[in-house]
């Protein structure tokens, strides 16, 4: 009996050791794969981060126009400046006129082809700002000439 118990105990301890060994191997394999996929975890580099202070959107507004960019002052101006002037000039926005649908389509086009990021919960503010301040004006088939600078033409 006792030798039988002893045998059982030996088997059990061997079994536990085997389980532990396999567990260690599994962990090692997992760790190896993880490191292989994310080589950066082993490079014990100091956090290469730069602290960049984003200046508050320069507040200077003259005659309802944000001086630095030329944008019309209005709700959503900050979001528009911060998301729409990284890649292109504000002028590309201010010279255009679109409906809400048109502005959304333009944002989608930029996201699909021009690396624009997801605007998240700011999209609504941006689109509303654009559709309000840069809405299409009816021009008909030909506009009258405007802004004519009159000058005497000497013969």
């Amino acid at each position: 009996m006792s030798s039988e118990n002893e045998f059982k105990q030996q088997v059990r301890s061997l079994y536990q050791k085997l389980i532990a060994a396999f567990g260690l191997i599994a962990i090692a394999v997992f760790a190896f794969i993880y490191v292989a996929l994310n080589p950066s975890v082993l490079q014990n580099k100091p956090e290469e981060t730069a602290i960049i202070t984003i200046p508050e959107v320069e507040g200077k507004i003259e005659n309802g126009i944000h001086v630095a960019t030329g944008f019309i002052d209005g709700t959503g101006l900050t979001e528009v400046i911060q998301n729409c002037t990284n890649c292109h000039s504000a002028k590309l926005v201010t010279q255009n006129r679109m409906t809400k649908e048109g502005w959304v389509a333009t944002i989608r086009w930029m996201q699909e082809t021009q690396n624009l990021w997801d605007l998240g919960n700011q999209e609504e503010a941006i689109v509303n700002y654009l559709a309000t301040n840069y809405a299409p004006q009816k021009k008909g088939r030909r506009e009258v000439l405007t802004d004519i600078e009159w000058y005497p033409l000497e013969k």
Partner: protein
Amino acid sequence: MKRRSFISKGTLGTFSAILGTDIVFGNTIPLGYKPLALQDPDPFKLFQKDSDMTVLNNKPWNIEAKAHLLDDKITPNKFMFIRNNGLIPENIDVNKWSLTIDGESVQKSKTYSLSELKSKFQQHTYQLTLECGGNGRSEFNPPAKGNQWTIGAVSCANWTGIRLRDVLEDVGIKNDAVYIGYHAADIHLSRNPEKEPISRGVPIAKAQQDETLLAFKMNGEDIPLAHGYPLRLVSGGWPASTSGKWVNRISIRNKEHDGAKMTGTSYRVPCEPVAPGEKVADEDMCIIESMPVKSLITYPKSGAMIKEGQSLNIRGHAWAGELEVSKMEYSIDFGSTWNSCTIEKPVNRLAWQHFSAKISGFPKKGYYEVWARATDSQGTGQPMLLPGWNPKGYLNNACHRIAIKVV
């Protein structure tokens, strides 16, 4: 992910954000937060443009002329419009500049140095009309998105270079060649090196015309940086976007070239006419080829006041894409009656033509408009109203007019 969190933090105002090194171009982002006025150099000095030119966009640079600035028979650099899709290449080294001809339809791809191109092939000079496909876009209703060109995105300078055809002959192209597509050194606005700002081209027949050049001189001097230094493909009479700047590779394709801004709706108009504002599916949009007949009154400048009884001399240029202008007229009564102008022959094919007329008198004091109308060699004239609406606002060749007051 991190970039997004950067953005959302940014919107809270004066927040500092942490930029990890894995953020592509992260180091360039803060530039956008400098007041634009401080960030931008003076474009007129930078590109030697006249200060009366209109800047439509500074990132990328898009600058247009006004009608009266285009009075010269040969457009000098200072009055030449700039239409860029991306950022101008940085650190150009002409000694290392090369041109590679590759693609499905070359026997074997070949690379030439710039000096090789200049010495190996015969050089030619042509005066070539380059007009942006979107010139006149600002007038469309409903409006089309993009740079809102008025009338000044056209030029006609002298271009000196070698014929693309000669280079293609030297390389050896296969019979199945259909299209050529250029590739260039300009930088995508996102600064993603994987993306090309623009890579367009022309059918092989246009590529093989006498006047289709690989140019290295404009008006007898090195091409200005903004216009494609040191090597530009020039295909006159077609949307200027087919005249690739800073060219370093040309692919000979066995199908329509499918580079950036060749596909989708770019430089395309509805294959069949549509009502203003109508949605058009991509597959129903066709590539623009030759530009339509058009003209500009370059003298006098709009707004001239003349004395009663005084005559008025007018002049300008007219062009018609691949065709010639065969008739030029003006009207001082909004098209009720038309009078003919003198129109010169082009100095070479694809160059604009000069017109002039003497308006001997206006019937009475008051406000007038002088309208000009060109008709091409196939009898097609310019419309007085906007031509067919199209989603991207291309090909507005409506008559140009100037305001005159008789006092």
